[in-house]
């Protein structure tokens, strides 16, 4: 699945930086029905997390009311150079990961 990550490639130590993520997912609520009345099974992302050099800095639970292709943005403090690792987990064994590097001077 395609994901778009926006992390500044460079930052000064102590800077507050914004991280923006966009994940491709239909986020089917499980409340809709087809024309012949059958329930369309729920298929959503249930959890998102971000680790900064191995340490978890952000986590979110997602629910059926979240729109398709969830856009999640949050802030953190640039402390050291390294990698951000992102993980999305969802229904029917959905797992997607992405990485972004940052250089902190």
């Amino acid at each position, binding site marked *: 699945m*395609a994901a*778009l990550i*926006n992390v500044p490639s460079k930052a000064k130590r102590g800077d507050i930086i914004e991280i*923006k993520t966009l994940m*491709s997912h239909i986020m089917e609520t499980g409340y809709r029905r087809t024309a012949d009345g059958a329930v369309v099974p729920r298929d959503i992302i249930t959890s998102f997390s971000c680790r900064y050099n191995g340490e978890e800095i952000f986590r979110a639970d997602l629910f059926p009311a979240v*729109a398709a*292709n969830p856009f999640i943005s949050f802030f953190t403090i640039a402390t050291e150079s390294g990698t951000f690792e992102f993980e999305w987990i969802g229904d029917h064994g959905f797992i997607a990961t992405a990485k972004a590097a940052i250089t902190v001077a």
Partner: protein
Amino acid sequence: MRRGRAMVLAALLIATLPARAGEIPQDERRSGATFMAPQTQAMQDDDTANPGMLWTLEGEEQWNKKTGVSDKACSDCHGDAQTSMKGVAARYPAFDRELGRPIDLEQRINLERRRHQQASPFAYESRDLLALTAFVAQQSRGMPITAGSDEELAPFVARGRELFMQREGQLNLSCANCHDDNWDKHLAGSAITQAHPTGYPLYRLEWQTLGSLQRRLRGCIFGIRAQPYDLGAPELVELELYLMTRAAGMAIEAPAVRP
């Protein structure tokens, strides 16, 4: 005295009302993006917030993937899309000599699949077709629309214009009734835009997905309670073609975001 003044006022009102009727003057044309809230505009302008970009990423994969009986990828013939596909979306729908009629970008992609890759065509509005179309259209970002300049297209543009002007459906409305005559007003809280197809395929927040211009047109036709043409129908292509000539010179913004 008072009555006289009221009559003058009424006469003035009547005189100003139909001022808008007719086609939009060239210098008053505006992209649908200018009707959106600043937040939605920001979403479109930021490539990491614009959900349409997810489709262009998938489209790029498609572009380089070998497929069909001939086991060829788009890139095997066309090379780097950034150069070979630059400006292509700006001139579609274009005339296909073999078929003797105009075809839109989606139909062109499917024709290429059949003729050169010997692969089965993608279904209309399928994720694969939208992704590849979005990727090709993205290469024309910022370029002026030139579709319809081919002389052979003239009768088809004229037919598209007729469809645009023709009243139909239970509400007995033509496209022009809203998009030429009342584009500065609102319909149930939504802006009526000028119907310039500058950003297709685009991500519509209401759809929660990317969609083609044909999907949008069918939605409009359904809205005036008329029978929509099937996806891929020649009438829809003629409408697309007329809309593109109407927006000639305006910049392509695909993949756009709309509310």
